């Protein structure tokens, strides 16, 4: 049943997201074309193209921001409306567990965010902007290989390091999403007249955000403290790697906590109005 839930969640968000993706890709194409034209042509038209190029590049950057914001808003609204408002009467009486309902939302959210990143990167490549600043595929590969060999000299596995960074990124994404969801669940578990559950959710989110920052700072300080402040250059990579791993562990713990809160609240304290 989880796959069916995912299918419907993807369909629900997919319509809007794909429109924005399309827009962003079109912007990228325009940037590319105007860029090529302004380079190829001289005189008045060449200059005009140059200005157009900058303008469309500006629009494209805006659309990158728009994609991220819209995705987040879409995900949060869908979670709230589908599970904690009127649609909840339908969803929570389906023969599926609260766990499935939850993970369907999480998985589709991850898919949308990763999709955002992929389409953003694709747009940048299409637009030719990286090339303007000297980033080509070759330079990218060169950067990676340099890193790999450099790391090796310090006795650190470069590829492993990159993998850790990617894992960290995904865990942070999961943690962020689960933190938002948990805040919404907590806010919506309060019942009473004249209570604005959205406002409470926002307040809870701010609280969880503060908690996260405090814990992170504390953890990093603790690690630094234990290791001492003098870190030889040769150890720097290992050291930062350690910090990354600690962050991964912390984020994982928070992820589990927030996911558990969300699921338990939906199982036991569902308070649909």
């Amino acid at each position, binding site marked *: 049943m989880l796959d069916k839930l995912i299918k*419907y969640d993807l369909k629900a968000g997919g319509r809007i997201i794909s429109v924005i993706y399309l827009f962003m890709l079109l912007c990228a194409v325009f940037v590319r074309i105007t860029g090529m034209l302004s380079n190829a042509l001289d005189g008045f038209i060449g200059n005009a193209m140059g200005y157009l190029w900058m303008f469309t590049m500006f629009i494209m950057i805006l659309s990158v921001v728009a994609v991220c914001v819209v995705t987040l808003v879409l995900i949060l609204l869908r979670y709230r409306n589908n599970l904690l408002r009127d649609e909840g009467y*339908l969803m*929570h*009486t*389906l*023969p599926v567990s609260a766990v499935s309902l939850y993970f369907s939302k999480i998985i589709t959210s991850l898919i949308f965010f990763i999709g955002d990143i992929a389409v953003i990167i694709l747009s940048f490549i299409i637009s030719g902007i990286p090339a303007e600043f000297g980033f080509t595929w070759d330079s990218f590969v060169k950067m990676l290989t340099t890193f790999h060999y450099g790391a090796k000299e310090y006795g650190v596995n470069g590829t492993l390091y990159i993998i850790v960074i990617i894992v960290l990124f995904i865990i942070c994404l999961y943690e962020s999403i689960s933190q938002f969801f948990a805040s919404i669940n907590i806010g919506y578990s309060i*019942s009473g007249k004249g209570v604005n559950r959205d406002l409470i959710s926002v307040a809870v989110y701010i609280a969880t955000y503060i908690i996260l920052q405090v814990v992170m700072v504390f953890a990093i300080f603790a690690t630094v403290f234990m290791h001492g402040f003098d870190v030889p250059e040769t150890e720097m990579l290992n050291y930062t790697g350690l910090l990354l791993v600690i962050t991964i562990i912390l984020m994982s713990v928070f992820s589990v906590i927030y996911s558990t809160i969300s699921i338990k609240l939906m*199982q036991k304290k*569902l308070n*649909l109005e």
Partner: protein
Amino acid sequence: MGNILECHNLTKKYGSKVALDNISLSINSGKITGLLGPNGSGKTTLIKIASGILSASEGEVMAGGNRIGVESKKIVSYLPERPYFSPGMKVSETIKFFKDFYSDFSEDAAAEMLKSLEIKMDARIRTLSKGNREKVQLVLVMSRKAKLYLLDEPMGGVDPAARDFILKTILMNYNEEAGVIISTHLISDVEKVLDDVIFIRNGKMILHESVDQIRSEKGKSVDALFREVFAC
């Protein structure tokens, strides 16, 4: 025939407020039961617990022999008072949705009923009138071959012709293997259709009898008895 709904010492509290107070009852399949009581008496709470939307504070509830959970939801068909489809969905999409998640759903039955109501398949829910929206939900709920139908105030705010349609649909879908629970305060409309009635007040069950019994023993309609019992 067996027990389609069983409650043992069911209690639901919201903080200090007691919504359901130690309710024990059992309802057999093949019966259409009316859950009657004034607003705030606990009828909706009881139905929400049986459907799995709310969890009990104490006590046990079984539907079709299963504790309330994923298994019971497979055989319970719930019609809430609220609109529960996303407004942007088309009627045809709601049918697909039910078909996807409920193995006991009959697409043909639903399509036929909607056709006789002249509700278009590609109409979006938000374009339908309130009455039609409620009819769509009713049609979908009744197009399942469930063991327990929970209808929460199916006739509130709906015109008399629609009420007749609802009752007719309930009767046409009747089968001995299933039970129907209708919570309502429009008793006189519904009385002829009921086998049994349960009176609830302040979370307590004060009566559970057959309509025939009430009429022959007390010589009055359930509606009249209700007015007496719940006189303010």
